[in-house]
């Protein structure tokens, strides 16, 4: 059923977002709230190219979306990290808010009404399943990529940098370029997720990428278990599937959405109190 497929596609896309966010904050120790905006950069770049430059194949557009996200992230991290690691949080907040405001005000991006009529790529009854296969594969690739990065020698370097930066630098390693690299990889993946999103839903609304979305992604990461490779997957599934499941409880509409919200936030709070290391454990 296409309904279930859509939810599965969303889970796949958010798995990419949660995984890449986990790489940046969980493993890299970089505080940032700007993940949704890189999602947006990827989505809008892909969408705009698809609408205005028809001769580039969809894969190309998604890759270009990722590239745009990477470039933006390098610019952001490069300038912010020069001040201090903590500054990235503030700078990312400003970047997130500012760029979103820009997207809402430019006619070129469709303004507040959003970007619609992104052209179809796959048509026909197999569209849903095919998209699910593609997004699922991308999600798996992302999760394993993150796992490979952190389990390899590069990963040990990242841990060292995150836990004991002073010693790390003293040993002659370049913490700054490593941080920027991690940030770029994470944000690039988010951009790729955006490209996939644009093609599947064929419509982008700026409100979907606001700063509260970073809270949602962060919750997925924490619930699933920050610093574990598969934690974000679990988190994404839970946070997307549970609200949908609740809608089938046939509650009267006036209480449905807040009840959904209450059930969901209570679950998260319980987890935070009782099992803070997340479902899959990992570092406390």
């Amino acid at each position, binding site marked *: 059923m296409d309904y279930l497929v*859509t939810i599965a596609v969303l889970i796949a896309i958010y798995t990419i977002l949660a995984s890449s966010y986990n790489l940046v904050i969980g493993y890299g120790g970089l505080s940032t709230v700007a993940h949704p905006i890189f999602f947006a950069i990827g989505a809008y770049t892909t969408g705009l190219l698809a609408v205005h430059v028809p001769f580039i194949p969809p894969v190309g557009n998604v890759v270009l979306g990722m590239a745009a996200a990477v470039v933006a992230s390098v610019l952001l991290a490069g300038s912010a990290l020069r001040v201090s690691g903590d500054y990235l949080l503030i700078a990312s907040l400003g970047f997130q808010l500012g760029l979103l405001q820009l997207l809402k005000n430019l006619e070129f991006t469709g303004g507040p009404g959003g970007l619609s009529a992104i052209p179809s790529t796959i048509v026909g009854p197999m569209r849903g399943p095919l998209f699910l296969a593609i997004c699922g594969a991308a999600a798996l690739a992302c999760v394993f990529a993150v796992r490979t990065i952190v389990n390899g020698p590069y990963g040990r370097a990242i841990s060292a940098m995150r836990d004991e930066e002073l010693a790390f630098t003293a040993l002659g390693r370049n913490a700054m370029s490593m941080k920027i690299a991690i940030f770029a990889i994470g944000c690039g993946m988010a951009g790729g997720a955006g490209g996939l999103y644009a093609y599947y839903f064929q419509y982008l609304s700026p409100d979907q990428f606001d700063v509260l979305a970073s809270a949602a992604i962060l919750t997925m990461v924490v619930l699933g278990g920050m610093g574990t490779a598969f934690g974000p997957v679990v988190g994404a599934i839970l946070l997307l599937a549970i609200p*949908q499941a609740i809608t089938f409880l046939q509650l009267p509409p*006036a209480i*449905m959405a807040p009840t959904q919200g209450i059930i969901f936030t209570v679950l998260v709070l319980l987890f935070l109190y009782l099992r803070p290391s997340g479902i899959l454990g990992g570092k406390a």
Partner: protein
Amino acid sequence: MTARLILPRRKLLATAAATGLAAPFVARAQGKEPIKLGSALPLTGSQAGYGNDFAASWRMGVKDVNDAGGVNGRPFELITLDTQADPQLGINAANRYIQVEKLPMFFTAWSAVVKAQAPIANREKVLEINAGANSPEIATLGDFVYTTFPLADVDITKLAKYVFTTLGKKTAAVLYINNDTGIDAAKIYRDTFTEAGGKVVAFEAYDPKATEFTGMLLKARAANPEIVHIHGLTADTPQVIAQMRQLGMTQRVTSYSAAYNPKLLQQLGAAAEGLIVTSLAPGVNDNPNVGKFLERWKTEQNRVPNGLPYCQYQYDMVVFTKMLYEYVEKKGQPATGETLRDALLAIKEFELPMTGKMIIDGHRVNKPVYLLTVEKGAFVPLATL
């Protein structure tokens, strides 16, 4: 009735699947099997005040149509899904309607939602009908997206012309909310007003989340307009007008149906005097059914509905759907997105109880525009255009 209709449901589904029909609506054996009606509305969230009243109006319509026999004996079964006026949830709702409830058509409102659902409707060949949003872009969203509610170009054009020609105002300020609704409508007002011969001396957008409009209003004040058109939503319009009056601007204010709202009169008091709003549905004096509708609201809910004209449309959509289904059944066709759409275009002119005559003009719809103004703290009719 042909033999085809007596096939058991499963077999028909299998046949339909084999012939590749999109979401076949199951034609049934004679009996009371209900026809499902889908209306995606914001039942929660900031627009729920309207959304819930729309849903209530749907329910009233369904009850009346069912009491009168339904569609050839079959009752309607209303399924409302909550969109919170959010595009993503709108997409979920559309998917639910199409995949889970197997509906060949569904109703929707709120421009961003309508736009987000359009690709799905077009892809799945399911008829998407807008019954409340007014973004002109809706007319170009695709083969399966139609509107029964007049888009902004209908009422704003007539309003702007009226302001210049009948009210004799030569200069106007246009203040609008920086979103879909506001941007499109503001442009239409400006273009129409200028074309008629007037001059738009201030043209300012405000952020949807803004609560302070002093700067914008001072700019407008400095431009010395004879009249001010405010195009916002229910939450911000009263604040803009309030601050306008507090800054000493005494010009008359025009707005559109979102300002046709009793709560606004409460919040503004005397500051609302002279306000002109548009309504796309006949009022109590134009159509006796409207009075009865209001009475029913007062009896059942103890108040008047939010957005009365919109609610009239929602009520009428049940009757409208009945007409489409009857047409399709008369032709012996199953009710699919395509057949219903063709019915829509073939019937073209609908006589509906609460909103009167509706003429479908391709992806648009033409309706008269009713102007009302605030006199002594109440809305009274001003003109019909």
